[in-house]
């Protein structure tokens, strides 16, 4: 070989090597995530990536599957909305099929929500989620779920069913090829995790956290205790609103309490946080817009003569929806309603004998105790005059792209120490705060739903709900036989007056809970003379209830519901649909005269003058195109700030803001109170000064909105149903929905919260039921069933909910039939 040849061969080899390196390098580059960019090669490959999630619009959801862990065979008949009507020969196979279907249509959401509950988000989201994960673990979420699993294992029926559910979910996951993983796994570049009973328990604890967390905002409230006088606190944060319409009608006499907690002698002086504002802001504040309506009318008030039950739980609206609609049938029982992917049974629904629904009790079931550790190791704390040992739980948090984080959580007699020197906003204050929360106590909420699914009578319902502990719920009930009822059910501490409003001393058991309100003494109404019962997150009783029951109550929706129901006769399901869509602003009804009396039009800007005219003409309906509602909303917010910023500003805005209703009622009672004055100015302001100033301020932002054509109520609040990954994937959300209402109206639709499931059930024979939720039966953004019900929901339409016999379903279905067969 000549020298020239050898040179050219060397050069060719070098080029080959270079080309190989470039090719492999690019493959490696395109096979992994870069920040939020998915691994583009795999992601876009038509045979592996997202294109595999693009479901043909004619896709056949039917077929036959051989599945491990199924005893017999199950027939699933989907209707044209992809609602499965499941027919199994026994409960165990039925619940297996439910788990299988939940996974088939909602795997990512179940996986994400339970990872979040357990504090395992950093594993895929990286370091930015570490604080969130630590918080979940410090709150004892896994600790709580483990206690729930132990309860499940003690009950043979529960264990059989929860095991069947877990097997059903895993049967789907195990047969799932990576190209068919839900889209979000490909986007985040993660893998599905197998299911367990612990994860089911975690999901239910997540609901407990969402609904029955710190409803009293103890820590934030502690900041106020040092800043305001006791009478000021009572004024701004009243126990009972003047306008309260409780669940249990006023005038009902309550029996003498059987548990009488003793108030510690030193309670008045033993407040924590007198001198310093706590350095941490409130953790996981309950969202003001999370609430619900339910009501039931007796046959005496309906056209058909049968009770009608209605429920619309207001939660964060998400895609996929928190709910999945199903019919679950065995030869022995048949039930229909909203199920919660990640948990067995129907949660809100009906069978041919009974219907039930839930709203949140809003009761405070979580308290906080000041803990004194012996030293930074947190192995011992001062309790009952000596150093008591803590139980140390070491939490290892896997973090994507970084080393694991080790977190040490000390458990005391009260519960986990959530806040200590390793977990605060500022290192300067070494306070330690332990959490006492009913969600940590062993209980098995799931079985309440199992028993409700099978209930035939009021007695069955009562038996079913008795064991339900946390989150406290208002269980509304109606039966074909004509009974109506509502129990506020939960495990609630029997508190002495003022107990648990702020952080309490934790040096001994003086301030600990002394007992619980006996279940029979929980607020309830059964077959009232007047023929209706309602709950809408209001305080359950008036001030004569013999227990101290603080909570994050919402007053106005109940006022509206009660007013309408009391005036209705010959009620039909169509009337109930109209009522669920009602957008009358009853708070503004009281606030408008006050505002108009006190505004000094001479001192208004030209723009503000126009707005006050529009506000005066407003019909008090918060329709999507209402201008008056937007003006009211901005004006009232501006007024609250003008009134209270001087007082509450001292707390660096870390205090819970008083409720709209509280401020309104104070002003309706007395317009000369001292707090009206702005203490930051030399002169003394009157209510007129403040109301006028507030509108002038608000009118500037209103004018901006008007210029941008965002003055109508629905454009201003911009109703949005976000994907579970929120702002990471705006393209998967639906925004700009034209829906009226707001958190304090019956149709409680705010920016991203609202009626997550609307249900109306008339207990005739056959049952006549309607329902809808914003979203679709499939969690897959590549399916036509991903968001197909959103527009109908926004318009206020309903779907007929058909509880069908197997033969009827076979005849009615022109869609898909899926057969599951045991693989023995």
């Amino acid at each position, binding site marked *: 070989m000549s020298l020239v040849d050898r040179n050219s061969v060397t050069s060719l080899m070098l080029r*080959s090597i270079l080309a190989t390196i470039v*090719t492999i390098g690019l493959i490696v580059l395109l096979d992994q995530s870069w920040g939020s960019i998915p691994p583009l*090669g795999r992601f*876009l490959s038509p045979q592996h990536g997202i*294109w595999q999630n693009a479901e043909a*619009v004619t896709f056949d959801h039917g077929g036959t599957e051989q599945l491990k862990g199924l005893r017999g065979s199950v027939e699933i008949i989907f209707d044209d909305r992809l609602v499965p009507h499941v027919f199994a020969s026994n409960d165990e196979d039925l619940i297996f099929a439910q788990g299988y279907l939940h996974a088939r249509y909602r795997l990512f959401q179940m996986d994400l929500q339970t990872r979040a509950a357990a504090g395992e988000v950093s594993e895929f989201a990286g370091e930015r989620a570490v604080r969130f994960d630590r918080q979940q673990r410090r709150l004892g979420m896994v600790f709580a779920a483990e206690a729930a699993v132990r309860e499940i294992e003690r009950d043979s029926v529960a264990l059989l069913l929860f095991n069947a559910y877990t097997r059903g979910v895993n049967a789907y996951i195990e047969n799932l090829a990576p190209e068919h993983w839900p889209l979000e796994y490909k986007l985040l570049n993660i893998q599905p995790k197998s299911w367990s009973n612990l994860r089911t328990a975690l999901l239910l604890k997540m609901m407990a956290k969402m609904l029955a967390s710190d409803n009293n905002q103890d820590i934030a409230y502690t900041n106020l205790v040092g800043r305001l006088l006791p009478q000021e606190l009572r004024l701004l944060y009243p126990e009972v609103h003047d306008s309260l319409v409780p669940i249990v009608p006023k005038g009902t006499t309550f029996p003498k309490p059987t548990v009488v907690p003793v108030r510690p002698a030193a309670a008045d002086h033993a407040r924590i946080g007198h001198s310093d504002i706590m350095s941490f802001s409130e953790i996981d504040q309950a969202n003001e817009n999370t609430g619900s309506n339910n009501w039931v009318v007796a046959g005496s008030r309906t056209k058909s003569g049968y009770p009608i039950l209605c429920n619309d739980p207001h939660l964060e609206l998400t895609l996929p929806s928190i709910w999945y609609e199903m019919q679950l049938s065995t030869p022995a029982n048949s039930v229909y309603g909203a199920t919660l992917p990640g948990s067995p049974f129907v949660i809100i629904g009906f069978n041919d004998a009974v219907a039930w629904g839930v709203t949140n009790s809003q009761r405070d079931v979580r308290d906080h105790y000041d803990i004194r550790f012996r030293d930074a190791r947190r192995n011992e704390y001062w309790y009952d005059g000596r150093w008591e040992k803590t139980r140390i739980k070491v939490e290892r948090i896997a973090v994507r792209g970084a080393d694991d984080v080790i977190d040490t959580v000390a458990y005391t007699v009260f519960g986990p120490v959530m806040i200590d020197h390793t977990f605060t906003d500022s290192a300067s204050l070494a306070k330690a705060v332990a959490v006492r929360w009913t969600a940590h106590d062993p209980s098995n909420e799931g079985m309440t739903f199992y028993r409700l699914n099978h209930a035939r009578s009021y007695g069955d319902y009562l038996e079913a709900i008795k064991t339900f502990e946390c989150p406290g719920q208002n269980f509304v009930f109606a039966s074909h036989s004509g009974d109506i009822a509502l129990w506020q059910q939960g495990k609630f501490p029997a508190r002495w007056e003022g107990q648990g409003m702020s952080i309490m001393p934790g040096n001994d058991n003086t301030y600990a809970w002394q007992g619980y309100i006996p279940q029979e003494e929980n607020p309830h109404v059964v077959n009232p003379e007047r023929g209706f019962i309602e709950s809408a997150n209001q305080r359950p009783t008036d001030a004569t209830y013999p227990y101290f029951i603080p909570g994050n109550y919402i007053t106005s929706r109940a006022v509206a519901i009660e007013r309408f129901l009391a005036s209705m006769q010959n009620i039909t399901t169509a009337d109930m649909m109209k009522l669920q869509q009602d957008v009358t602003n009853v708070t503004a009804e009281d606030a408008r005269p006050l505002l108009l009396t006190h505004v000094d039009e001479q001192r208004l800007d030209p723009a503000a003058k126009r707005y006050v005219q529009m506000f005066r003409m407003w019909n008090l309906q918060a329709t999507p195109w209402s201008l008056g509602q937007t003006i009211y909303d901005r004006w009232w917010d501006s007024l609250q700030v003008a009134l209270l910023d001087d007082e509450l500003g001292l707390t660096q805005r870390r205090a819970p803001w008083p409720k709209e209703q509280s401020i309104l009622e104070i002003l309706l009672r007395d317009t000369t109170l001292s707090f009206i004055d702005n203490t930051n100015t030399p002169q003394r302001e009157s209510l007129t000064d403040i109301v006028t100033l507030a509108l002038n301020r608000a009118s500037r932002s209103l004018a901006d909105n008007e210029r941008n054509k965002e003055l109508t109520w629905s454009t201003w609040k911009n109703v949005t149903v976000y994907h579970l990954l929120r702002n990471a994937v*705006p*393209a998967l959300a639906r925004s700009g929905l034209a829906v009226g209402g707001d958190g304090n109206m019956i149709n409680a639709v705010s920016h991203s919260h609202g009626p997550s499931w609307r249900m109306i059930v008339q207990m005739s024979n056959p049952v006549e039921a309607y329902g809808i939720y914003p979203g679709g039966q499939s969690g897959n*953004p*590549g399916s036509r069933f991903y968001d197909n019900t959103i527009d109908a929901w926004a318009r206020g339409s309903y779907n007929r909910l058909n509880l069908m016999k197997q033969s009827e379903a076979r005849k009615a279905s022109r869609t898909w039939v899926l057969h599951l067969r045991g693989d023995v």
Partner: protein
Amino acid sequence: MRFLAATATSIFLCYLAGLVLPWWSIAICTFLVSLIFHQRPRLSFLAGFLAVFLLWTSLALWIDTQNHSILSRRIAGILPLDGNPLLLILTTGFIGGTIGGLAASIRRGPAMNEV
């Protein structure tokens, strides 16, 4: 002729491999084809690129048509593609094509007809 044969064989092989192997099997396929149908590097690259580009865009287009662009519009909104399904299909083809082309141009040496 050789160019067309290389392209056609690559399309066929890449499709089959994609049914069972990971996405980057396209690189193995176009590389193997380049060994059989030996061409100048530039032509070889072009054949590999075109093969995977055509395969991936037509698969994506087929799926997209069946899907009425429900998903592609959303994905093209997540990626900076202005919510445009066609751009997503072309991006898909371009990424696959680039890998296919690069792998096809690895073998350097005198083309058969030059030996």
